[in-house]
């Protein structure tokens, strides 16, 4: 039971950076823009968060720095993809590479120096409930914030007019333009939201999860976040489920390695990636659901006619 509880808690924590990054990308893609550069934006967030921390700034400011770094990185992509209408795939890949390089440069000074991590909250009463307390009420604030963001994103996309407009733009920017929406501006906002969320996800890794700066420390989570969005068929709830699945498999394989399963460790390390994609492919087979949630204009540059 103890093992289960601790693995459950570890899963929730491992999923948190993915939830941030993937929810952000979900909003970006719903507006019809494909930003492949999540990995780069996460790394930028991770490095700048640590940099601000070592500059002696309070943790909340370090997080803000990470968010700003992610948003600034996405702005670069936005200028290329939205203003200059370059190919979104190429611009996104460039951002991924650029972010990796910049973060390595920023992080040179404090590589592998341990960070004083954000501490789990001790909620009076709740944290003390046996089992339940450990499973649900002893996380750091960012874990809860990830759930708040899930609520916010779902509410925004499906309950607000702006969210409706965003989805409409993702389906047909031409029609949205025709009824008077500022397609480019709204897409910029979406892209920057995605960047901010990726930056926060990266900071979660370097300030809470690891907690220290290591070059290339995201280890492909940016790409997993991207896959989560696609295979979740652009639905927030499935993004969360996919993130948990990935987090759970990560923890499972660590356990497996720890107890010395007679399976090559490389295979175990690959397991989370394989399992997540396999499961998400299976649940996204319903084609009618796919056609409803798929942003039809995804990856296509929008050029106002005239």
């Amino acid at each position, binding site marked *: 039971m103890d093992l289960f509880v601790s693995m459950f808690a570890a899963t929730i924590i491992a999923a948190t950076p993915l939830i941030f990054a993937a929810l952000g990308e979900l909003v970006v893609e719903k507006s019809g823009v494909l930003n492949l550069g999540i990995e780069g934006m996460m790394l930028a967030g991770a490095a700048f968060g640590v940099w601000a921390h070592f500059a002696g700034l309070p943790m909340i400011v370090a997080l803000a720095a990470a968010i700003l770094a992610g948003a600034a990185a996405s702005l670069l992509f936005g200028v290329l993809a939205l203003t200059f209408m370059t190919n979104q795939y190429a611009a996104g890949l460039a951002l991924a590479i650029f972010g990796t390089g910049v973060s390595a440069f920023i992080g040179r000074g404090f590589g592998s120096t341990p960070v004083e991590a954000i501490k789990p909250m001790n909620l009076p009463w709740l944290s003390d409930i046996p089992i339940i307390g450990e499973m649900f009420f002893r996380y750091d604030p960012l874990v809860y914030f990830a759930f708040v963001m899930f609520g916010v994103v779902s509410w925004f996309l499906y309950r607000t007019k702006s969210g409706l407009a965003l*989805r*409409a733009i993702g*389906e047909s920017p031409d029609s949205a333009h025709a009824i008077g929406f500022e397609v480019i501006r709204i897409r910029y906002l979406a892209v920057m939201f995605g960047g901010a969320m990726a930056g926060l996800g990266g900071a979660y890794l370097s300030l809470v999860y690891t907690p220290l700066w290591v070059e290339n420390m995201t280890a492909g989570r940016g790409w997993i976040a991207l896959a989560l969005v696609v295979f979740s068929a652009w639905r927030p709830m499935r993004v969360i489920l996919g993130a948990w699945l990935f987090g759970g498999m990560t923890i499972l394989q660590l356990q497996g390695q720890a107890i010395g399963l007679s399976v090559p460790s490389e295979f175990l390390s690959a397991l989370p990636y394989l399992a997540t994609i396999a499961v998400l492919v299976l649940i996204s087979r319903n084609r009618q659901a796919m056609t*409803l*949630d798929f942003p039809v204009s995804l990856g296509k540059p929008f050029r106002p*006619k*005239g």
Partner: protein
Amino acid sequence: MTPRLDLRGIRKSYPGVLANDDISLSVLPGEIHAVLGENGAGKSTLMKIIYGAIPADAGQIYCDGKLLPEHGPAISRELGIEMVYQHFALFDSITVVENIALSMPGRMDLKRLAVRIREISERYGLPIDPDRLVLSLSVGERQRVEIVRCLLRHPRLLILDEPTSVLTPQAVQKLFETLRQLSEEGCSILYISHKLDEVRELCHSATVLRGGKVTGTANPSEASSAELARLMVGDDLPEITVQPTELSHGPLLAVNNLNVRSETATGTSLKAVNLEVYGGEIVGIAGVSGNGQRELAAAISGEKIASAPEDVVLDGRPVGHFDAGRRRDLGLGFVPEERLGRGAVPSYDLSENALLTAHRLGMVRHGMAMRSKARDFASGVIEKFNVKASGPDAKAHGLSGGNLQKFIMGREIELSPRVLLVAQPTWGVDVGAAAYVRQTLIDLSRSGRAVIVISEELEELFEICDRLCVICNGELSSPLSRAQTSAEAVGLLMTGTGGKAAGRGAQTERDRHVV
């Protein structure tokens, strides 16, 4: 009185085309003003300029006497200019009420908006369900959504682009009542059309366009149809000639008690459909869109395989269990409603598109496509069917609607099908090409083939068909002989209120026909 809208010297050019050349017109408050012209005359471009969706190269727009320094859709909406597009600006993946909410100012309250939509749609006889996904709506239903969307915003100038092509005659009358009521309330209306009768019945004044220029203005209730047509087309319209015909002994196509359950909750199921089409005749399928036309076309063409082989019989042979390819092999031609994406691949050139169905004419050897044969075939079709295209290498999406339709029709006819099924043959096709397409269908039937035309344009069906069936809510009426029925009777059947009288009359007519 200050005009609600005053255009002066509007000019717009696209690469290679001068779409609008020095166009001026003015519309008074409460006036219903027609803009008449063939497809391609520049009407739609002009309307988009008025709405602000595209900028003009030159010229001024005055609204209520004030010059608009700049223009855009948002400015139009502030001024109360609303537009019902010919190609609807609706989003498929969201519901009707959500679509409408997007163009309403202020906070979103879907429940209240749904109530208002129901009120408006009932008051103006435009039934729509606010909670349905637009994805599942037919063309006609989408138009209703567009019109209701405009009406909800209390427009001061309403632009309607070919609004009646998808409506029943009764619904057209209903729409006209609505428009007249709006006009009495002081709303100006720009009514874009190529249908002279409608313009003469409804409009107070008319501006006629041809080739991007104003060729005249007229009071449509005083001018004769012939005068207006001359302004519109330039020379006289091609006459369609219908020769008497001789029917084949047995039906070339029979549909027997066909039931098709709709796959989606919002589609239409076909209920016990019976249809016999003889060689030498054209049978028309009339109906308001979304009543099962799509399902019927899919069931006959083989896109949807029937439950029993005997459900569809082609020239005496049960083919219900065959797919579309096998049915084509056996002599069934099909020209679908959507030209780009279904009738032809937009990014393919014409010879490649020819290959898609005409590979049956020996264009494939050892599994390899013979491009030179495909090119020859495509060139032949281009020449024989007067397709205006640079040649067999022209991309399908580069052709105008009419020319691509001629090409697709030609491709199918060159395969010499025993039975040809055509859906919406002249949708978005200019007058000249439409007449050509219709004449081609008549000639094909007179050479002993069976032709089925599914169309929402009653005038067209009355022009070319020997017999007419009406599809309503997935049920197909008994055939009516064209000579012995009227638009009103067909219109009643289209709304499902035709009752049994028409059906009985049709039954005796059908017996006579078979004898």
